[in-house]
């Protein structure tokens, strides 16, 4: 594997991709997820093969996947969005309200309204963080309470019941296409679009750059404030969509909907390998983390593990993921120090002076191929 890093062109693209996949966090989380499902199913057949087993396995995480994808975009920029749970609650209530107050309103309009409201709430966060220069943790903690308060004031003691919403809308919460629940398809579509954007668009890569080193991003001339705003808008919009999804899935909206789910979204992203200090991680990992979190919560009772331990397992998973990240980063940093030892201050670097006589460009790279030992990182 070290060969692949030292001699990049020697390895074929297919092998390189395979190598990357094998070392990825995504694969590790996926394996844990599969193992969990297998063990639980072995314990109780109904978990996967019951009447609703397969459907629930895919359907239950869809809401958290949406939130985790938005959260990932924000965390990558070295920020965090704690207000998504309250945003979700507000838009879920908005959904029910629209169906009650505007009879016959098309479902598409309601979905768009929910997304738009979420985006607006996210924009408030983004503006405060990017231009107000207030840490995101503080801003979104504040707006979390503000949005929840607005929700409680607006809803009062109201409660949206299943009967308030049209049948076609509620069916979305249970329908499947080709054995895959509609809501899961929605979540996976969002996942693919955002994942593709973050990987292949300039704007997506700039989010990583900003989180990796904000000061350097400024020096580069990147539009730091605008990018951070767009990440928060995305997070808010997806929380809005998740609110609509939650109304469709549960058929009711109470004032406590979405409480605490923001921390699950952060946890899912962290478990999926999104570095809390920004700059690295993928939405694929975060989505798998969301699947794992939700599935653990569903499978531990099946395995007969008590409530207390369920919470503890989730907590241990999050702490373990962060510790793992720190260890990996520390290892890389040690490699950096080792590389400095070969610098000009530490005496003659024999591996570099070897090719002095022919060191002028344009040189064929092969002439200097052995001149430095690049340490393998990661």
């Amino acid at each position, binding site marked *: 594997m070290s060969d692949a890093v030292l001699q990049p062109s020697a390895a074929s693209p297919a092998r390189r991709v395979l190598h990357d996949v094998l070392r990825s966090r995504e694969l590790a989380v996926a394996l844990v997820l599969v193992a969990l499902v297998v063990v639980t199913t072995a314990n109780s057949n109904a978990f996967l093969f019951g009447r609703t087993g397969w459907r629930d396995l895919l359907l239950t995480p869809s809401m958290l996947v949406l939130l985790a994808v938005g959260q990932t975009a924000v965390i990558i920029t070295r920020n965090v969005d704690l207000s998504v749970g309250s945003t979700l609650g507000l838009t879920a209530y908005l959904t029910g309200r629209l169906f009650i107050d505007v009879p016959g309103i098309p479902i598409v309009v309601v979905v768009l309204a929910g997304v738009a409201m979420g985006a607006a709430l996210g924009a408030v966060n983004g503006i405060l963080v990017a231009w107000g220069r207030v840490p995101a943790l503080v801003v979104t903690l504040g707006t979390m309470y503000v949005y929840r308060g607005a929700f409680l004031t607006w809803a009062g003691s109201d409660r949206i019941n299943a009967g308030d919403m049209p049948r076609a809308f509620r069916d979305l919460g249970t329908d499947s296409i080709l054995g895959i629940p509609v809501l899961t398809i929605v979540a996976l579509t969002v996942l693919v679009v955002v994942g593709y954007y973050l990987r292949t668009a300039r704007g997506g890569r700039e989010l990583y750059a900003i989180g990796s080193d904000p000061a350097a991003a400024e020096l*580069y001339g990147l539009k730091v404030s605008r990018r951070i705003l767009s990440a928060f808008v995305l997070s808010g919009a997806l929380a809005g969509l998740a609110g609509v999804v939650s109304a469709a899935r549960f058929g009711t909206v109470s004032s406590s909907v979405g409480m605490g789910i923001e921390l699950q979204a952060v946890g899912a992203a962290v478990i999926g390998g999104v570095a809390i200090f920004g700059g690295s991680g993928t939405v694929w990992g975060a989505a798998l983390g969301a699947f794992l979190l939700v599935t653990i919560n569903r499978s531990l009772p099946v395995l007969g593990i008590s409530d207390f331990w369920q919470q503890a397992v989730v907590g241990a998973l999050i702490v373990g993921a962060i510790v793992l990240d720190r260890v990996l980063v520390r290892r890389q940093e040690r490699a950096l120090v080792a590389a*400095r030892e070969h610098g*000009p201050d530490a005496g003659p670097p024999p591996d570099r002076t070897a090719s002095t006589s022919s060191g*002028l460009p344009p040189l064929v790279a092969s002439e200097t191929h052995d001149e430095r030992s690049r340490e393998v990182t990661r």
Partner: protein
Amino acid sequence: MQSSTPAPTLELREVSKSFGPVRALRSGTLVVEPGSIHALIGENGAGKSTLIKIVAGVHRRDGGVLRFQGAEVDFASTAESKGAGIAVIYQEPTLFPDLSVTENIFMGRQPVGAGRRIDYRAMYAEAEALFTRLGVRIDPRRPARGLSIADQQIIEIAKAISLDAALLIMDEPTAALSGVEVERLFAVARSLRDEGRALVFISHRFEEVFELCDTVTVMRDGAYVSTRPIADTTVDALVAEMVGREVSELFPKQPAEIGEVVLSVRGLSSAGRFRDIDFEVRAGEIVALAGLVGAGRSEIVRAVFGIDGYDAGAVTLLGEPVPPRSPRAAIRAGMAFVPEDRRHQGLVTESSVARNVASVIRRGLSRGGILSSRAENAAAAPWAARLEVKTGALDMHATTMSGGNQQKVVIAKWLATEPRLLIIDEPTRGIDVGTKAEVHRLLSDLAGQGLAIVMISSELPEVLGMADRVLVVCEGRITADLDRAEATPESVMRAATASVTHTGTHVRAEAGAEGRASA
């Protein structure tokens, strides 16, 4: 513009810039022709970096003319200057550690294919071509984290080249490079020059300036001194122009009785930072550590005080060994350390003067773990009075004080521990000229009372005026040990720059031996 003589690529005339009360740049003038490599030299603090940052769009000028390719410009951001065709390689590499080296090079202007999708294949190929041109072999897919400083510098250079800029500015690009890498960089610089681009090269290594550049501009004290063809000048002439000012009697150190050895440092080494550091400081003596920024002076005193560790050597204070890596033990042994960046490291600017002064001796003041303002004020008052800190009251916040008074508060804070040795890093940085003299008189008085003082200073007049002995540090070694009579601007400047070579291991070995012999 006349067509017969093309406009200079870059033209700055009498550009000025102040940061608060500090005039970083008084009158910067620099004219760079296309197809030329222009050296910009000057002492630390001569205003070179400020000048560069104005061109790069990091700072905005207060006054003067800035023309780029004949047109008047005013860059409000780095993006604007970059867009106009100016590439800058900063002293400190600015990379994104989590991203691949290729992405670091092309961030914000990646090659895109259909649907504005980043064409990774083309991008990697382009990066590979750049590395080939630079004659280095770096995996374009590896993350920037873990690269050595030299490799990071290579990435910066690749980035600048890929910008296809009309003007390339390099702020000490060779500081971390080895001989081969410097040669490669020079070859690339020459090929860029032959394409008609303009280059500005900042370096403290005269041999590089003479090898690479065709024109040289000297700056001193934030102002332009001269511009001449490199063929018409010599190292001696340049050194004279860099330091050529009167060493006035602004900073008179009163002669003090030199007593016993207080601090003794033997064979102190830390890989990658400094090597074989030997020196002694006696009671009543002010020893200056002179040298260029980044030579390792701060690192040495940080190790002596125990903030950073070291690999070999020993520190003794008054004959007692001082354990490494323990500032607490150093304080107990009788050391005091006033850091360079007092706002961040030496002073709690949000707190009152009394609290700041009392902070290091808090342990002795508290009763049953509780610290009262009264006890703090009582402890602080005599020290503040002795240093003539001009504040209305001891509970005034340190934020609102001038730089000179802040520095006095920091010194007062340390004097409260009754040290035998005071280490002070850049005692007058950011302090206006009037107050500088007060700080100097204070240091002189303290030495007169038998305190041993180690002073790091980048300002030659300060070094020459204050120090009983000058130790010149160059690339982590003490290259000269000059007493008051021997220390002249030329001798210090020479020791700080002259022994620098690319690979230079034998020269450094000699310098190290010399340092040992004379210490």
